[in-house]
């Protein structure tokens, strides 16, 4: 009897201890579930909010406004030269890219002459991705200023001026809007209050972003990318190295038997008579 009683007390005590342990285990499991659930909820909320916010912030791939005379699917291309020219030169370039600067300083007199002779129309894609890797705004503001110049009918001259005055890649002087306006004074008739306002307000910022997003989705990865009638010719066309002489030769070959285009003046100054490469003239202080 007393033995039984003692045994009963022990089992009761054991049972209570077990229950308490089970209770604690349950509480700790619940706590873990709540913490884990909170963590996953915080992460899920952050990701959903992030996607929604970025979707709202991102500039559309089809720009709301494009500079006058822009052509192509979403008006992302600036044409220069006769629209009915038999050959098309497609150029992707970033205002800050040094290789583009060196390409332009070597080739722009030749390209301007080919345009003026009605042999080519040049399709410019003004991309702006150097800012991403080096920081700053020179690519974007430079591209916007080029769009402003296009809007004013002075794209070609301003484009040539910008590349002749291109700073070192790591130096973001095109990120200074005043520098872009000062350089515009080298193009007769360009520096109007309208142009300055366009540069200062980054009027074509959405268009600049759309052009870059179009480049992002293309298969081209570097600048300058230069295509003659769709075929890459920079730095080589097949085995042949590009040079002003070779460029003229390739264009003439492609144009054989085709009528030349009829270039209008479009307010641009005529090409220089010499095809000698222009020197880089940094802005005087």
């Amino acid at each position, binding site marked *: 009897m007393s033995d039984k009683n003692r045994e009963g007390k022990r089992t009761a005590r054991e049972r209570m201890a077990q229950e308490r342990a089970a209770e604690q285990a349950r509480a700790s499991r619940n*706590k873990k579930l709540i*913490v*884990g659930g*909170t*963590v*996953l909820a*915080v*992460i899920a*909320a*952050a*990701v*959903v*909010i*992030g*996607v929604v916010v*970025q*979707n709202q*912030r*991102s*500039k559309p791939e089809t720009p709301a406004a494009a500079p006058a005379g822009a052509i192509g699917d979403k008006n992302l291309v600036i044409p220069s030269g006769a629209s009915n020219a038999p050959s098309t030169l497609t150029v992707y370039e970033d205002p800050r890219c040094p290789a583009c600067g060196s390409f332009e300083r070597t080739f722009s007199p030749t390209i301007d002459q080919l345009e003026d002779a009605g042999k080519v129309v040049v399709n410019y894609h003004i991309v702006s*991705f150097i800012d*991403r*890797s080096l920081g700053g705004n020179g690519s974007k503001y430079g591209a916007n200023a080029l769009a402003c110049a296009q809007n004013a009918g002075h794209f070609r001259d301003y484009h040539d001026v910008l590349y002749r005055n291109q700073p070192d890649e790591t130096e973001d002087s095109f990120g200074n809007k005043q520098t872009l306006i000062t350089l515009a004074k080298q193009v007769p008739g360009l520096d109007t209050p309208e142009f300055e306002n366009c540069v200062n307000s980054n009027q074509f910022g959405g268009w600049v*972003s759309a052009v*870059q*997003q179009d480049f*992002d*989705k293309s298969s081209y*990865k*570097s600048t300058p990318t230069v295509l003659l009638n769709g075929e890459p010719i920079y730095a080589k066309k097949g085995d042949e190295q590009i040079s002003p002489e070779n460029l003229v030769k390739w264009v003439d070959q492609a144009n054989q038997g085709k009528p030349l285009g009829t270039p209008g003046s479009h307010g641009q100054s005529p090409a220089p008579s010499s095809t000698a490469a222009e020197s880089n003239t940094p802005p005087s202080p």
Partner: protein
Amino acid sequence: MASQQADRGRAVRRAVDSPAAEWFGLAVRLGLAVVWGWAGWAKVSDPAEAAQAVRAYEILPEALVKPVGWGLPFLELALALLLVLGLGTRIVAVISAALLLVFIAGISSAWARGISIDCGCFGGGGAVDESQTKYLQEILRDSGFLLLSAWLIYRPRTKLSLDAWLAA
């Protein structure tokens, strides 16, 4: 010999469970928080740039490029926040480690396929010149962060954490 090993085992266990280890854990937790916070914040400013950094890996289909490019920085920022608070440290460390393994796999894959990109780990990203790829450094750096995550999976109890406060 066997008892010596047992002694050493006990000594290691004592060190790992000591308050000093929990302070060390705090440093690891905040260190990883800074990494995620910095990585996330750097990818927020330009959505198009973030999308392009993802696209450049040429792994995901175009339909997923933007959601991943836009959502990933906020995932990283959420991990940073949770690490600062010290809430659910072990789960957060497991997710961190998984994410880092995905990043290391992505970078290795780009390297193996011979495409030239910046990893875009801390903003930037996209195609770069072949001479400017830094795949080995990027993988070693992420492996270092992986070690931080591994420590927190192993010892999630750290000083000044919500977890410790909730457990008390």
